């Protein structure tokens, strides 16, 4: 357990007895090894940055690696609940892991605050007063891409996503706000690395634009191959494929691509400027959206402890719902199902010196909540 104690010690978070406020113990379950580790590492680093900045010695964070395996995540959650007696869980990156952990953690009376994953089930029929998403509802960025495409005058889009629930939600979310025609609708294989066949279909489809949702390595592969194919239709996608880490691997192929995001490093507010500068100084790299969401989550939790004792659950939940913290996304509040109400932006990929990054070009949606509030009864 060296790493756990080590992390806690490094962050100078040793519990001190006799503080004015009750101690809060946060359990963070995230992906730190194997494929997809970069997302979890950013989440953790953003979160811990906020905790360190707060300098609160009554808050303790235990962190463990879920290896991106649902059963491991469940096991860690059980350990954190049973043995370490955490008050709050957070940190899961992937929707399928969240589905494994969140409902049963809520059923055991724990508050879960999501730094990223926010599947439709947990926003709709499966919502809970103990579950908060600080990131978005999974469909949001796709909806914003649809709204952007409709507003920008596209009327014959080619849309594609991997064939799994998040992919199907993505295309449905896009179509919710996009009212033009479809030149093609394609589901690729999850984990697919070669998109030659799809690019040929795009070329032949007569589309006027392409929307794609291909997270992680899939997006890198697609963008590189698309850039080399000679097809030069405009491309739109959610921020997942235009993350700081991914952009450096894609290179020139991503330039000028539009993507939708709830956050960008050039978002103009004081909290964000401070966050970006502090993150760069602490870790020597630019923050990603996962880091920003981790940072916001930590600040939300810290803000709630100022107002209520974590052991008084009803009061603590109410304090969380007030969202009284300086979000790096500017204005931020919770909708009736504990998912964010926030603006969603359109960014464009640019090159700053040797670094590929994003800049905001417009706002796709203002005060967007989500499509599942009616289904949520709590």
């Amino acid at each position: 357990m060296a790493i756990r104690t080590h992390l806690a010690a490094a962050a100078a978070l040793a519990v001190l007895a006799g503080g004015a406020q009750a101690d809060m113990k946060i359990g963070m379950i995230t992906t730190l090894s194997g494929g997809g580790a970069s997302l979890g590492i950013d989440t953790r680093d953003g979160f811990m940055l906020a905790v360190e900045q707060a300098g609160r010695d009554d808050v303790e964070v235990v962190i463990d690696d879920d290896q991106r395996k649902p059963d491991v995540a469940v096991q860690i959650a059980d350990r954190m609940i049973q043995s370490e007696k955490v008050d709050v869980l957070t940190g899961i990156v992937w929707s399928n892991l969240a589905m494994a952990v969140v409902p049963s953690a809520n059923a055991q009376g724990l508050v879960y605050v999501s730094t990223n994953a926010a599947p439709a089930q947990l926003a709709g029929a499966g919502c809970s007063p103990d579950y908060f998403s600080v990131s978005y509802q999974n469909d949001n960025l796709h909806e914003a891409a649809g709204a952007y495409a409709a507003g920008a005058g596209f009327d014959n889009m080619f849309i594609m996503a991997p064939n799994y629930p998040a992919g199907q939600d993505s295309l449905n979310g896009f179509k919710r706000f996009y009212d033009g025609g479809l030149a093609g609708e394609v589901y690729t294989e999850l984990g697919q690395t070669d998109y030659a066949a799809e690019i040929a279909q795009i070329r032949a489809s007569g589309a006027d634009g392409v929307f794609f949702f291909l997270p992680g390595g899939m997006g890198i592969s697609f963008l590189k191959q698309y850039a080399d194919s000679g097809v030069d239709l405009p491309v739109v996608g959610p921020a997942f494929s235009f993350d700081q880490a991914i952009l450096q691997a894609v290179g020139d192929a991503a330039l000028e691509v539009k993507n939708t995001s709830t956050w960008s490093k050039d978002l103009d507010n004081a909290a964000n400027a401070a966050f970006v500068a502090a993150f760069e100084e602490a870790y020597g790299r630019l923050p990603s959206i996962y880091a920003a969401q981790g940072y916001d989550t930590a600040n939300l939790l810290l803000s709630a402890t100022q107002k209520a004792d974590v052991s008084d659950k009803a009061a603590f939940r109410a304090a969380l719902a007030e969202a009284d913290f300086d979000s790096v996304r500017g204005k931020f509040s919770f909708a009736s199902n504990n998912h964010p109400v926030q603006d969603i932006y359109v960014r464009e990929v640019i090159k700053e010196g040797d670094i590929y990054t994003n800049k905001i070009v417009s706002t796709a949606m203002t005060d967007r909540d989500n499509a599942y509030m009616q289904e949520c009864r709590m």
Partner: protein
Amino acid sequence: MSPILIAEQVLNGLQSGVMLFLMAAGLTLIFGVMGLINLAHGSLYMVGAFAAAAVAAATGSFLLALAAAMAAAAGAGALVELVVIRRLYDRDHLDQVLATFALILIFSEGTRWLFGSFPLYLDIPDWLSGPVTLPGGIQYPLYRLALIGIGLSVAAGLWLLIAHTRIGIRIRAGENDREMIAALGVDISRLYTMIFALGAALAGLAGALVGSIQSVQVGMGEPVLILAFVVIVIGGIGSIRGALIGALLVGLTDTLGGVFLPELFKLIADPASATATGSALASMSIYILMAAVLVWRPTGLFGAAT
């Protein structure tokens, strides 16, 4: 669906098949001569891609990167052969599966430890980028054409090596009777190390070539490895010719299945569920192909009867 699109998709299938062949050739050679199942072959593919990305970033030369990929993979292959693999030749397949499974863990996490969790940048050189127009008006990326060319040349080179050189004679002799060629004074362990390094170099080359248009990241080797296994099982384990035919079959089935099955389902169902069902079936298609081949010919298309 226009004939041009179909022709383009066939080219795509061919290209992915030819790259699979580079992976499968090494696997099947190693199995044919040494009787070894190497699950860690995908790791050598990853080593090639990472070495290429590192060298390309340092020197900016694509050709140097390719050379580095082959050298690094061959080096890693030879090292692994000397330290681990040669103890496995006379073991049963179970031990080989387990030991090479262990090697995957070591390679993957070791690479992540060295290079970090973030994907690396590796791109195709300017002189190979962009599309060209083929007869019939097909726009096709030059780089993918080059991949087809390289793959077919490697196949031809391997055939020459095995059919017409002294080393080839030893390799074929090794496939037939290990004890005998050892008794005839051939340094069998050196031959094995060499074959293993050759197979590794091919995997490394494939990793670098494919990595240039995909994402260079830890774990990139495993999906390709499983496909390569499917290829050599269809072709018949140990047969280079089988690996080539199997690779092309798998490449074409995978590409064309993904394109045409959803279209086919649209004839009988509404578009949204047709795309989902068709895509689901397409992702299973190569495994169905493999099961069908094995039921028909239990040792693959060109495999020797056991």
